[in-house]
């Protein structure tokens, strides 16, 4: 079977969690085996995973951290042919910990489903999206951690039998505080990202960026210089040394498009660049471009999108 770790936050599944089950289903269909989902016993509506292809759904009391959960999964490997984990913050720590515990073969930053299963061969982003690596998981348990949004969610019914499980796992760190902004779309999982740079001239001008993001249900992001000078928090910095995103739509406003920034966004399906400088390198990486002043274009775009939303 293919074992898929299904993350929940405040007892709700994340979008990437459904995508993980879809990934496991595709892999299992190639390998001719079943899909077993592992979920927190607190997660609401575990049976909903059946519609994405889970044949069995094991609920258990999960540890609090990625390494603790990996310890639990490492005791559940009987009959398992492969493991799928979404590349969320938790998954990015869980997957390599598990690989080390069971001496497995891990592909992280994975952008494709397997092209073959003997051995498992997948594609992954490398060199900060400047390259694509084809990698074979040749020795030991194959483990895939994929980039959220890269695969997509597909409905396909599985048997969906719920079983309660137990596995011991120990957290080696104590969680003392967690703060997550409510009502905001988390950047790594966002389908639409509205990003702005020094062209905005100052942090006081971000109101229209947030308004545009709200209309689109988007996450907000920024360029590196903007986070370095403190206009926006580091957690919004998108680029080679910041967060790498792959939304359906990335709108870059007042960002020139330095190679380091493009490395973090080039996996986006559609890119819109808005810049006063017609020579801005971003126009070479974009699908659509507007040469114009953000202070003029963005309010119009908000207005047009509101009209569009009202009509559709």
């Amino acid at each position, binding site marked *: 079977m293919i074992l898929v770790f299904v993350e929940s936050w405040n007892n709700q599944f994340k979008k990437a969690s459904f995508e993980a089950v879809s990934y496991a289903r595709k892999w299992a269909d190639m390998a001719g085996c079943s899909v077993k989902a592992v979920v927190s016993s607190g997660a609401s509506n575990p049976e909903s995973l059946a519609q994405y292809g889970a044949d069995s759904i094991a609920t258990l009391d999960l540890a609090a*951290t990625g390494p603790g959960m990996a310890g639990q999964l490492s005791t559940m490997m009987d009959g398992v042919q492969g493991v799928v984990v979404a590349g969320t913050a938790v998954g990015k720590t869980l997957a390599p910990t598990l690989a080390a515990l069971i001496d497995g073969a891990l592909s*992280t930053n994975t952008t494709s489903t397997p092209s073959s299963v003997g051995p498992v061969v997948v594609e992954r*982003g490398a060199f*900060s999206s400047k390259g694509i690596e*084809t990698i074979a998981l040749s020795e030991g348990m194959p483990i895939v951690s994929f980039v959220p949004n890269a695969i997509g969610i597909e409905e396909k019914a599985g048997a969906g039998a719920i079983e309660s499980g137990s596995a011991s796992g120990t957290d080696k760190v*104590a*969680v003392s505080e967690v703060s997550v*902004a409510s009502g905001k779309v988390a950047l790594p999982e966002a389908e639409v990202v509205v990003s702005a740079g020094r062209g905005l001239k100052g942090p006081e001008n971000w109101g229209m960026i947030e308004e545009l993001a709200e209309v689109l249900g988007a996450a907000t992001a920024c360029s590196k210089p903007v986070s370095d000078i403190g206009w926006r928090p580091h957690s919004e910095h998108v680029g080679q040394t910041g967060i790498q995103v792959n939304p359906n739509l990335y709108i870059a406003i007042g960002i020139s498009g330095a190679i380091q920034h493009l490395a973090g966004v080039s996996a986006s399906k559609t890119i819109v660049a808005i810049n006063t400088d017609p020579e801005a390198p971003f126009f070479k990486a974009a699908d659509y471009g507007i040469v114009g002043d953000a202070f003029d274009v963005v309010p*119009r*775009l908000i207005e047009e999108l509101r009209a569009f939303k009202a009509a559709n």
Partner: protein
Amino acid sequence: MNILVCISHVPDTTAKINFTADGSALDPAGVQFVINPYDEFGLTKALHIKEAQGATITVLNVGGPETEPTLRKALAIGADQAVRINATPTDAITVAKSIKNHIQANAYDLIICGQESIDYNGQQVPAMLAALLDVPMVNACVGLTIDGSTATAKAEIDGGHATYTANLPMVIGGKKGLVEEKDLRIPNMRGIMTARTKPLSVEEGLSGSNTAAKAFRKPAAKSAVKMVAPDQVNELVRLLHEESKSI
């Protein structure tokens, strides 16, 4: 306090990436190599700890002799000694096992890695190392204080932050925030001179691999951008809806 800072030798962030004609590897021609940016934040954090409470800083890289200038640069920035584990870093798990062997033969209180290297973007070695050593780890770490044998570490999580406490020794997967960009140090002439005489030892690493890189290629080039006049934003909305189906 003994701090180990693991550094990767990677193409500069501005480098244009090309692969060899057969697609089997990076073509290093014309590429300048630097200390992995994520690791630079970790090295600077180690220097801050040393200056505040005293420490010996060892920098370590798994790689061939061509990576030694990168280790010397870390020495010039202020590390006390360097170790090169002589092995071709083909696979994160083999790299982590080689580093584990070094750590078990040399007691370290704190192991700082960058959360990922900007070449293979695996984000694997720090967590693997912690699992192999059976010690705590915090990934995406953006703040660290050490008080005696206890660490308090702030980390980015999806949509926010979490703070953890753990007992040393532990492994950190760090990034910007551990120190700020403005805190990063450029080696000065005195640092470069003293780096020449600081110890750089070579140990043999492990070979073998659980994964095999079969091929590398560049992403397909984007087709030409479609320009929209700034007074026709409605046209952009139409294209995003009808053509790219983004909204």
